[in-house]
């Protein structure tokens, strides 16, 4: 099987290289009519027309996916069959490993995760090449560019990081070292593939944008074609990031979900620029504006995805996630510089093609809010990049590294986040082109009143925003601002739904809920987008709860109690257990509420994995909308052998996960095509309705 996998990778590389070269030659010939050296070899030598050459390139691209799939299958097969002749399997699997985690072995190490990159990339390319009829020429450009990226990743897995290397000396060990215990968690089976689907997926809109610029493609069709690609990719990245947060929260056991680790930051940067892109393309679609900006946004998003991978793999920055330091970083640097050079060169050559068609007409307009939204998203991205790379800069300038961690990001990044929340609420309230004072008054009064009510209403409930001035503690202030702004944004969103639904209700006579559903179906992008905003606001509310976190640690004997917030935690029992994969020590804790009623039992664990000889905590969490009671087994007292229990009371965390689900739902809705107005009206027609009314109802709310 290793030989099969190794050869599959070689074949995939050859096919991708052919796709790149033949595609480039055919497209150059078709665009300019010039017959170069390669043209004479490929076209004259093989007696093929440029069109046939382009088609053969596309088919080679499709075949490269099949070859890469064979390689990925070979590696997973080796993990499933405990083929310890493969060095990678020895390092990342063992016989006792649960079957579902054998899949995770594919991406738990450097070589396997690069193979996953290559496989997903060829997979995206496979879909793109199959759907080439959407625009044959533009798809051919995008396919060729994508083939270039494929060549790079397939070179990596064929030369410096091959996953099919055999064990040195040919002595096959009886068992492997096992999978990192941190990865032996159900979410870890889906978090990395989701994140990679996000990273890799940005290669598709990037390829379309670069291709459209190279061929001076007229209009916004490339944006129209890639809109769903970009949204799906963005969704994968969003899900990947939040699965990572959920995993960190439930596995790492430090009570938090985001540590501002360089690798976490690396995933957030392309997400921020991707979000900016999803907003600013609307300006191009709607008004033919910001064309250069959009092209550079998608270039930057792809470059940041590559930079993120570089940071993880080069050892440039220290991180809890980083793979072992390896020469692979040099390869990524070269690739990054090459991509940047190609983008810059293409832009300089064709920038006159990106002239804007309209200018902004008013400072108070949707366009203007998009410009500021983009600025803030990019400022957030720059802040994270700056914080991630500052230790390296410090080493160059001062001769020593410094640490840039949570306190720095909280002080610098949180105000930017609050500003972003404000613009999230503001933007949808403004009209395209220009917003009148009357409209501002009409749209802003209710959300502003809601914000004011919440700001005042929070003060008696222990929120003390003035501490930023008295003690310098910022959490309360930012939480207070976030809650108030959230009220503003949520009210604005619901008002939008309500206004539109009322119009439909007036025309169709159906109830408000059905009217909301019909309204959403008739403009999925707009109302799906509002739902995404709503989800993001809930996520911000969840983040704000951090300002009120509490924690306690104590060694607990039988029937001993610990008090935290409204809970009493009683130690019922503590014991040990063992299976083939790990030994475990755990405590059985009963949780009572303030009125003395038992509400749940928690069993935090401390596992010791036999194969890897590594310990791992298993968090026990009782989650409610108000707060999470998060308990870890921190160790055993050396003298008494009693469990050391650490409990955290983390307010509002559940809203983060609810917010993510709503964001996913909103994005899903935005991906669905609109229900045509006429059809919607027909479906919901009331018997007495006249044809004119149906037409009016069809137009309403757009």
């Amino acid at each position: 099987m290793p030989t099969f996998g190794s050869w599959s990778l070689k074949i995939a590389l050859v096919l991708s290289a052919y796709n790149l070269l033949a595609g480039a030659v055919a497209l150059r010939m078709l665009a300019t009519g010039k017959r170069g050296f390669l043209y004479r070899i490929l076209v004259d030598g093989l007696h093929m027309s440029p069109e046939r050459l382009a088609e053969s390139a596309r088919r080679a691209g499709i075949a490269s996916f099949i070859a890469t799939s064979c390689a990925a299958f070979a590696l997973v097969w080796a993990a499933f069959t405990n083929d310890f002749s493969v060095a990678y399997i020895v390092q990342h699997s063992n016989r006792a490993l649960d079957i579902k985690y054998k899949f995770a072995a594919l991406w738990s190490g450097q070589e396997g995760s690069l193979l996953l990159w290559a496989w997903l990339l060829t997979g995206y390319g496979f879909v793109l090449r199959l759907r080439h009829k959407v625009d044959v020429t533009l798809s051919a450009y995008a396919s060729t560019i994508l083939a270039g990226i494929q060549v790079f990743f397939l070179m990596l897995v064929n030369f410096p990081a091959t996953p099919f290397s055999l064990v040195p000396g040919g002595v096959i060990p009886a068992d492997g070292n096992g999978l990192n215990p941190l990865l032996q968690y159900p979410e870890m089976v889906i978090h990395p593939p989701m994140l990679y689907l996000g990273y890799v997926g940005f290669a598709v809109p990037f390829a379309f944008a670069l291709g459209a610029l190279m061929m001076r493609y007229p209009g916004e069709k490339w944006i129209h074609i890639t809109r769903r690609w970009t949204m799906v990719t963005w969704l994968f990245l969003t899900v990947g990031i939040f699965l990572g947060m959920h995993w960190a929260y439930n596995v790492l056991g430090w009570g938090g979900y985001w540590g501002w680790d360089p690798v976490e930051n690396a995933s957030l940067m392309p997400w921020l620029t991707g979000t900016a892109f999803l907003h600013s393309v609307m300006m191009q679609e709607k008004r033919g504006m910001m064309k250069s900006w959009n092209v550079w946004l998608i270039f930057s998003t792809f470059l940041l995805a590559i930079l993120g991978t570089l940071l993880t793999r080069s050892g440039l920055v220290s991180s809890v996630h980083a793979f072992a330091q390896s020469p692979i970083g040099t390869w990524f640097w070269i690739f990054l510089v090459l991509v940047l050079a190609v983008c810059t060169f293409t832009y300089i050559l064709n920038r006159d093609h990106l002239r804007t068609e309209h200018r902004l007409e008013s400072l108070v307009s949707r366009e203007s809010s998009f410009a500021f939204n983009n600025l803030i998203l990019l400022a957030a991205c720059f802040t994270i990049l700056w914080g991630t790379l500052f230790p390296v800069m410090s080493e160059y300038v001062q001769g020593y590294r410094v640490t840039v961690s949570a306190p720095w990001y909280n002080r610098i990044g949180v105000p930017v986040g609050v500003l972003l929340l404000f613009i999230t609420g503001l933007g949808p309230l403004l009209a395209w082109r220009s917003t009148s004072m009357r409209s501002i008054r009409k749209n802003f009064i209710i959300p502003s009143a809601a914000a004011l009510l919440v700001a005042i209403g929070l003060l008696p409930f222990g929120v003390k925003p003035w501490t930023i001035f008295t003690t310098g503690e910022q959490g309360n202030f930012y939480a207070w601002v976030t809650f108030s702004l959230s009220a503003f944004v949520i009210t604005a969103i619901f008002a939008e739904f309500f206004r539109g639904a009322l119009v439909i209700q007036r025309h169709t006579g159906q109830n408000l809920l059905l009217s909301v559903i019909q309204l959403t179906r008739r403009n999925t992008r707009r109302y799906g987008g509002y739902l995404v905003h709503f989800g993001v606001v809930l996520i911000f509310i969840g983040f704000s709860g951090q300002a009120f976190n509490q924690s306690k640690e104590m060694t607990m004997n039988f029937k001993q109690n610990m008090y935290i917030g409204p809970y009493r935690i009683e130690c019922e029992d503590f014991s040990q257990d063992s299976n083939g994969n790990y030994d475990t020590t755990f405590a059985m804790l009963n949780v009572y509420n303030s009125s003395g009623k038992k509400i749940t039992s928690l069993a935090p664990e401390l596992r010791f994995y036999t194969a890897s000889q590594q310990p791992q905590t298993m968090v026990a969490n009782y989650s409610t909308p108000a707060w999470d009671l998060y308990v870890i087994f921190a160790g055993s007292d050396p003298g008494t052998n009693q469990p050391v229990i650490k409990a955290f009371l983390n307010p509002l965390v559940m809203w983060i996960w609810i917010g993510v689900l709503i964001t996913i739902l909103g994005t899903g809705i935005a991906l669905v095509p609109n229900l045509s107005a006429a059809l919607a009206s027909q479906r919901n027609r009331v018997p007495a309705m006249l044809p004119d009314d149906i037409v009016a109802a069809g137009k309403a709310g757009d």
Partner: protein
Amino acid sequence: MNRISKLTRFAVAPLLIVAGLVTLGAADTEARFQSVGHKLMCACGCSQVLLACDHLGCPNLAQETDELRTAVARGDNDTAILTQFQAQYGPTVLAAPWLTKFNIVAWIVPPALLFFGLVGTFFLVRKWRLRTVDLPDIPQDTQSVAIRERIRRDTEL
């Protein structure tokens, strides 16, 4: 009965005040321990904030937290504690760089960029608005015009 109750109240009141002060001090010490503990990193190389270090069997965690607890109990101020840790474990033990020399750049650049970006965007948008000269027509093929019209019709944003 009334007299006894008054006496009890007088006796209990100072006790309550003392207990309150002691508890207040304890809470204050714990709050300071938590606050300073989140300004320090674990020095074992795990790249985690000291009080968030979940590294089981960490060789540094216990030592650092003990030293921190002692320093807080001794009444050392934050700067003294951080200086002591920096001298002992090196500059990477601080979770965020201090406002000294080149480190100031770390704190200034992002807010400055955001500020100038906001001001710049404001003036740019204003300049665009004030321009009265019509833009030259950009030739467009009918297909892309039709697509744009369809997009605009379908996606009233």
